[in-house]
């Protein structure tokens, strides 16, 4: 789950505003040897980011695919002989378009920076955005009928339509995870092996089942059937059956 690639750590993906932002940062980075940022790592880092976000932004994900595909086309072109490249006319075009779009995006970033600096330099500009507290006396009031009631009806219909669109229900399948079976599974593994790590105990289970198994471990600890130790954050969780480790109990009593 945590980004495994060293690149992801180094890039600190969190503040990136999208795939263009990420790629532009990579492309424009002089200091670093570009060989150290292979596209494979970019993909892994991006996947980790999606994983962490917990949801996939389809538009941005498809942009990312286009972007990576273009990079791969570029690479293929460089690996092939010129004659073979002739047969890939689209690659040239795609690379040019990507470069043009990245250059355009660099200008957007520069404009955004200018706006940000402007805001910081001018400070908050506070002004009144509605009528003042007291109205002046109004000797004349032009009340000629200029409005069309049908416009009001149309406007409300539009509001209703949009409200309905936005409330479009999303259907999700509820998944049943057999908690008791996982409890038995963990209990059995720990008892038969005497001791093992959590990762070993849940090998072969999917993510939902692993989460449920973790709950099962907590329950077994609570019931006094299992003892568990983790020496550092994200380190392996070592579990043993409570009866198998008399010294563990002593240590627990001393603590």
């Amino acid at each position, binding site marked *: 789950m945590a980004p495994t690639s060293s690149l992801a750590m180094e890039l600190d993906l969190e503040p990136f505003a999208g795939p263009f932002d990420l790629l532009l940062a990579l492309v424009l980075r002089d200091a670093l040897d570009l060989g150290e940022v292979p596209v494979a790592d970019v993909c892994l880092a991006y996947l980790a980011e999606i994983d962490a976000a917990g949801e996939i932004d389809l538009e941005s994900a498809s942009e990312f695919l286009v972007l990576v595909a273009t990079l791969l086309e570029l690479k293929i072109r460089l690996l092939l002989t010129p004659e073979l490249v002739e047969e890939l006319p689209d690659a040239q075009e795609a690379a040019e378009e990507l470069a043009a779009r990245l250059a355009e995006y660099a200008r957007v970033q520069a404009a955004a920076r200018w706006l940000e600096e402007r805001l910081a330099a001018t400070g908050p500009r506070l002004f009144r955005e509605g009528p003042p507290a007291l109205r002046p006396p109004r000797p004349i009031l032009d009340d000629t009928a200029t409005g069309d009631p049908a416009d009001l009806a149309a*406007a409300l219909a539009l509001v209703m339509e949009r409200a309905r669109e936005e409330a479009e*229900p999303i259907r999700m399948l509820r998944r049943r995870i057999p908690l008791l079976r996982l409890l038995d599974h963990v209990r059995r593994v720990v008892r038969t092996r005497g001791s093992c790590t959590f990762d070993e105990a849940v090998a072969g289970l999917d993510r939902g089942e692993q989460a449920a198994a973790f709950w099962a471990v907590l329950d077994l600890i609570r019931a006094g059937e299992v003892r568990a130790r983790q020496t550092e954050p994200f380190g392996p969780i070592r579990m043993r059956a409570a009866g198998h480790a008399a010294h563990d109990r002593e240590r627990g009593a001393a603590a």
Partner: protein
Amino acid sequence: MTDQDTRVVEALLFLASEPLDERALAEAAGLGEADVEEAIEVLLERHAPGASGVVLERVAQGWALRAADEAALACARLLDRLAQRPLSRAALETLAVVAYAGPVSRPEIARIRGVAADNPVQSLLERGLIEEAGRSDRPGQPLLYRTTTRFERVFSLEEGRHSLPRIEELGEDLPSADEVRSRLEAMAVQEAVSIEEPGPAAESA
């Protein structure tokens, strides 16, 4: 009390959309009430009729600035000119919500339209098409808004809200404002995720 304190109090009075009493001014300015009173004394001279186009006045709820009487005609011309500009789409939608479902509060309008309503509400207030109508008894007691008689004249609605065009979905007869509002809100906040129980096939998968 320094000159700067006076200027801060002046800025607060300029910015406020309702009269402010000494306590509110003192709190916002970070001053004692005695300092605020002194500042008011200075400002009463600076903003006296004949000295400035903006006059400081004591009203029931506190202190407020107001355009001077000598500018009344010019102000009326300006407001009429502003009122004659076409309404933005956001303002028209907000006006429709207030007309069909009013009195409504800003948070209710925002919920129904799905976007904050501060700017359109200000612009409609300024044009005199909507006005305040007490406070809601919901949490936070937000101000309520309703359409004005001016609105009825501008849109030629002789019977007020009963002359509003029918909207098919709302039924043959125009339902009460309460009904319209609750139906609009129900539409907007409808539970967006429904969880389905899997069939036996899903379970085995």
